[in-house]
């Protein structure tokens, strides 16, 4: 699903976000920083801010309904369980999952990807990964979609392969048929890059992967917050995303998986709630999703994530995506006009998400970020947990600006002006 298809709906134009009204829902955006500077938060790809509606939901849960789930017969336990399971329904609807049982609550996309990489080491045929098998990833992955697959392939004797990246910042698919072969068991890739911003043609890759019988795993950490999402339209088998980047709390994420596939996979962690029966010799396991949710889950966080999804749905994800696109287009234009700024990744809004990473002359991202911070402007500087893609473009680190539904063009102007201050401060650039 490209952003293009995401905004061709009838909602475009007629359903614009009222950003000023939205900003009033985010108490932190009123923060004054050192020297009484207003906060200009351009680090939403790292973590988003949270609206009052989510914060109130968390508080209300702890103040009125707090209890463990699925094990209490008392009223609070029933209320907490009902709210927790309702959040599962909300998330299922949010990403158009065919069944609520396909929504596994995790600690975040990192745990979701590790879950998949681990259970595939233990799974029976046809899913199990073993010696001679191949796992294919890409050079633009976040470390959380690289390291778990390195661990899996190193431990099982399988081989890790990857797609390279073009100079423009797109996946180089010229060797698609050489990389995805009969030996391929898993293809795991990022849907929207957190560093380059690229939106990858996941359906096309999934088609090829399924031709050879491989599973397709998506890291949708930057996609679900920004795009109207339909898990089945992606063509993938398993998709992970993370709550804190979509207005939700930290410590909660979702792994979606095709129901028949989840039913065929072994458990990840063992513990409470994931069992059917436990004897001293052996245990049997609950069906999905509970098979993959051992122990007391992040209850308040799941309920809070449900509130975040409700908030986004009320605005309309078409409108959220359209705003993201507008802000990103504006930011690309403003940044390209700053002498010395070089954007790494697609230069236009075509098939592009909202993260914009750039270099600025010879200045180091730490120094850029520090001076911007003194003006209240929060950006990310470093490798953004994506060292291989930085290496690919010959830099050790970059500065990244990323907005969200509360971001204004005035904030982008502040960034562009801030960069001029950076240049002045260091007297180089």
């Amino acid at each position, binding site marked *: 699903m490209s952003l293009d298809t995401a905004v061709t709906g009838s909602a475009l134009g007629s359903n614009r976000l009222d950003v000023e009204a939205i900003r009033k829902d985010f108490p932190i955006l009123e923060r004054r920083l*050192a*020297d009484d500077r207003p906060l200009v938060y351009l680090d939403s790809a790292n973590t988003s801010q949270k609206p009052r509606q989510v914060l109130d939901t968390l508080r209300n849960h702890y103040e009125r309904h707090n209890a463990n789930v699925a094990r209490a017969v008392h009223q609070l336990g029933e209320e907490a369980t009902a709210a927790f399971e309702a959040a599962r329904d909300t998330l299922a609807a949010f990403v158009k999952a065919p069944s609520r049982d396909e929504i596994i609550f995790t600690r975040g996309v990192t745990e979701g990807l590790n879950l998949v990489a681990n259970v595939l080491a233990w799974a029976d045929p046809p899913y199990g990964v073993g010696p001679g098998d191949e796992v294919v990833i890409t050079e633009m992955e976040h470390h959380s979609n690289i390291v778990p697959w390195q661990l899996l392939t190193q431990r099982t004797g399988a081989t890790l392969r990857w797609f390279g990246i073009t100079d423009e910042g797109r996946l180089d698919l010229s060797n698609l048929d050489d990389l995805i072969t009969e030996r391929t068991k898993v293809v795991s890739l990022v849907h929207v890059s957190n560093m380059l911003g690229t939106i990858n043609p996941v359906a096309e890759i999934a088609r090829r992967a399924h031709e050879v019988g491989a599973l397709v795993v998506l890291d949708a950490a930057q996609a679900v917050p920004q795009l109207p999402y339909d898990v089945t339209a992606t063509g993938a088998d398993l998709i992970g995303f993370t709550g804190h980047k979509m207005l939700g709390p930290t410590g909660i994420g979702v792994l979606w998986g095709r129901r028949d596939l989840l039913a065929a996979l072994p458990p990840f962690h063992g513990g409470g709630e994931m069992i059917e029966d436990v004897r001293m010799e052996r245990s049997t396991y609950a069906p999905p999703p509970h098979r993959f949710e051992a122990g007391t889950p992040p209850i308040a966080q799941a309920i809070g994530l449900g509130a975040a999804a409700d908030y986004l749905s009320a605005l309309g994800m078409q409108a959220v995506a359209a705003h993201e696109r507008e802000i990103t287009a504006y930011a690309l234009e403003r940044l390209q006009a700053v002498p010395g700024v070089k954007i790494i990744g697609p230069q236009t809004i075509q098939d592009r998400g909202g993260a914009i990473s750039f270099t600025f002359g010879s200045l*180091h*991202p*730490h*120094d850029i970020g*520090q*001076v911007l911070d*003194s003006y209240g402007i929060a950006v990310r*500087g*470093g*490798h953004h947990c994506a*060292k291989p893609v*930085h290496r690919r473009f010959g830099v*050790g*680190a970059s500065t990244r600006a990323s907005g969200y539904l509360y971001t204004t063009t005035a904030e982008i102007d502040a960034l562009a002006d801030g960069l001029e201050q950076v240049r002045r*401060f*260091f*007297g*180089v650039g």
Partner: protein
Amino acid sequence: MQLESMYQEIILDHYRDPHGRGLREPFEGESHQVNPTCGDEVTVRVHLDDGVVQDVSYEGLGCSISQASQSVMHDLVVGKPVPAALAVGDDFLFLIQSKGDQAVADSLEESLEDAVAFVGVGRYPARVKCALLGWMALKDALGQVRIVQTGGHHE
């Protein structure tokens, strides 16, 4: 503005015009250090003669704080016997860990000279590692020389 308390003019001067930068021969000890949070890296080489540091050469990727700190390190350490070089390193570490305490800086002025300008960095926890990366490499490189020269520690 707060910023100037970290980026003192001496630091910016060293950043724009680093002293002793580049890797040189001969050297008896070499260390490569990486800051995993930001990916910055540095390689430091030391050349000793008769227990005295004759040269400290270095090359790396990093921000102004790390570049300037390596430049200052070069100035401070070259010409010193190894124990004195290590002692300066300890003083620098103490300065950076003082959380920006000007009294600490004043008390170390004789040992650290220009490097006391780094005192403000200690107030920015995210930048402490930047200031220390080169010094960690120096300590490691000097340690290697000692192991080689005493013939110990080979497995």
